[in-house]
């Protein structure tokens, strides 16, 4: 599946993205939904409580339950807030033209949000075969490909030029 956006390296970790109006609208809708659901803590209304949505977004950092709980108490709110702030910054600076120049900080915001907004469409994005299935497939792949584009362009496509035959390709 390919989408209508393209990107190029601007050097120094900055990225230029060409985002046609339809793609921009699609991204904006996903961002708004992501911010709303982070605020409300509900994945789909009536389906998921706030307490579980954090577990869906982040893998447990420890094997021991007590440590996982302590980590969650210490960091859950802050992590959620960081994502919310990043998504809000993107929305505030959302471009009204097709060509966008993202500085390294904005690239990081887009990269983070494009990663975690995937949890709108999959139960656990780090779980086995998250791209399998059809639910939200188009939007999910949009986010995956945008994230890939940003990471590649931020490093001047170094990785693509140095992949070896045995390497896993996107």
């Amino acid at each position, binding site marked *: 599946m390919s989408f209508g956006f393209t990107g190029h390296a601007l050097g120094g*970790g900055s990225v230029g993205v060409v985002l046609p109006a339809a793609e921009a609208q699609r991204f904006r809708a996903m961002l708004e939904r992501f911010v709303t659901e982070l605020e409300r803590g509900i994945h789909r209304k009536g389906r998921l409580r706030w307490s579980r949505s954090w577990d869906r977004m*982040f*893998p*447990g*950092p*420890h*094997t021991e339950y007590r*440590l996982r709980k302590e*980590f969650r108490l*210490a*960091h859950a709110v*802050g*992590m959620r807030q*960081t*994502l919310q702030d990043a998504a809000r910054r993107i929305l505030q600076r959302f471009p009204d033209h097709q060509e966008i120049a993202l500085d*390294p900080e904005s690239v*990081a915001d887009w*990269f*983070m949000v494009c*990663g*975690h907004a*995937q949890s709108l469409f999959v139960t656990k*994005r*780090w*779980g*086995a*075969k*998250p*791209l399998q299935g059809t639910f939200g497939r188009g939007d999910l792949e949009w986010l*995956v490909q945008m*994230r*890939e584009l*940003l*990471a*590649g362009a*931020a*490093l001047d496509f*170094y*990785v*693509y030029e*140095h*992949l070896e035959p045995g*390497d*896993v390709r*996107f």
Partner: protein
Amino acid sequence: MPSSTACCPRRPCAPHRRTGTSGREPSVKREKGDGHWTVRLHDDDINTFSGIVYVLHRLLGLPPDRGLGVAREVTHAGLVELMTYPSRQEAEALVRTLQLYGLYSTARESR
């Protein structure tokens, strides 16, 4: 575990027989928190090489060639030990950031 204990746990080996020591040292009971904390990066089905290299470069300043090496290792081995810290809090701070960037990372105490 002290190396000499590992060397000859049942009876003294030749070097220890020569020096007249048993090779057994009193075991030191380790308290919880004695060890150091390792941050591990796990393989998953959604992060790509580019994503891993980008995050390692941005957060840890790892050059892209070394980042690519880590990406290959994590893909083939399933996980890689990324950094070691003396405290759990420091390790968790990196885990938190890596997870915010969408990488599957955990912390583990090692001794």
